[in-house]
């Protein structure tokens, strides 16, 4: 079927495949992103305590 299509469309077809691949892994990417932000927050230096005389 693909062979009968105009060669102009191969990029459109493969962009759909790639998009599906991206969507399938989006939850993992989002999860990793959240974990990375969480790690950044945890490693950020805490504000020094203010000593009130």
């Amino acid at each position, binding site marked *: 079927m*693909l*062979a*009968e299509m105009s*060669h*102009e*469309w*191969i*990029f*459109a*077809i*493969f*962009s759909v*495949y*790639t*998009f*599906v*691949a*991206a*969507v*399938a*892994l*989006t*939850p*993992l*990417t989002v*999860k*990793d*992103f959240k*974990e*990375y932000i969480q*790690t950044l927050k945890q490693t950020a230096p805490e504000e020094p305590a203010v000593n009130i005389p």
Partner: protein
Amino acid sequence: MRASMYGKAFTFMLTFFGYSTLHAMRTSWSYSKKLMQNETGITNEDLGFVDMSFLLCYSLGLAFIGPLGDRFNRRYFLALGYYTCGLAYLVFPTVHHFFGVTNIWVLIIFMSINGLGESVGMPGSMGVLSNWFTGKNKGVVVGTWAGCCNYGNIFGLISSTIISQYMGLKWQYIFFFNGMLTLGIATVIMMFLEEKPKDDFVDIEKLLNDVNKTTINGNDSSAESQQNLLKVNFFTSFKIPRVIPYVISYSCLKASIYGLLFWLPKYVSEKGMSGYSGYIPAMMDCGTFLGGVLVGFLGDRFGKRSLFLSPLMVLSCLMMLIAKFLLSDVPLPYFFIIFFMGLGLGGPYNIIGKEVTNFRDSNFDRPWLSGLPEGQPQGHLDCDSCDRRLRGVIRCSHPANARRDEP
């Protein structure tokens, strides 16, 4: 005693160039499509059937012939596969050149045989590499070795361009060159490839010591874990986290990469840029290779490799849409667009491939788990042979398994 550096380097180079010739054959085939069509009148539909039969036989070969590499000497296993695909690749151009045959069934049948022959390349090479390279460096070595796919693709495209454009020879000579090169590599493999280091006896001694320890302690944990491995089958493996998204994603990525590999040169030719039909697709492999390196680097830098997978694939997707809707027949933009397309595909492709390797290192049934995303039972492919021997020895020494393992 360690395997000599010379032996390691020689084995690495031989398997590297061996497998790269297979990829060179594939890209030279896709490069020749348009030239072949012009001369023989083969239609797009015919070429589609040829590709389908080739890939079908290739995947079936990976599933059913690949695991046979564990049972035979890999030197002969690899050589036989390379001879098969080299000879099959030469049949159609030879009968066309000398007898004027243009029957599409000849092409379909022999490209199918070519696919079966090619299917031994990865399992056999990985098996040999696993014997020669152990320990911490194994991952780096296998990762570097994986660059042979890109090298082979670029080599196939450039050599085809030189033969057809600079030397002015017909498309048959592209086949002749790559087929003969594969036969040459097969001969070198047959004569010189060592399946494993000759001083491998040290490992066996270590294995026997390990077996003695487990038997003396009465804690046959390996046999127990072997029992656990068998609990996961094809259906239950889908319940394991990450398997389903990786299967879907890897399948789609592989479809895109192989689709572009097989059709991009023809696309470029039909766009009126025949002079660039070797160079522009080569940018795809440059991008794929650098994409893998880039994502590996960024993953190490941020400690999260999945962070970049979806964005890169979306980038690749955008590049494809730009190529479809915005680009005309001016070659220069294609070089950049195709490069970034490869960059976006190659990074995720390599990382998911790495995750497949991690599945193999998990406590689950390796062949099924790694076979699901890869489309091949890779657990058979590059399982550490020492590990397999150890398990084999343990199974034989275990009374419950003794009868089962008797010939």
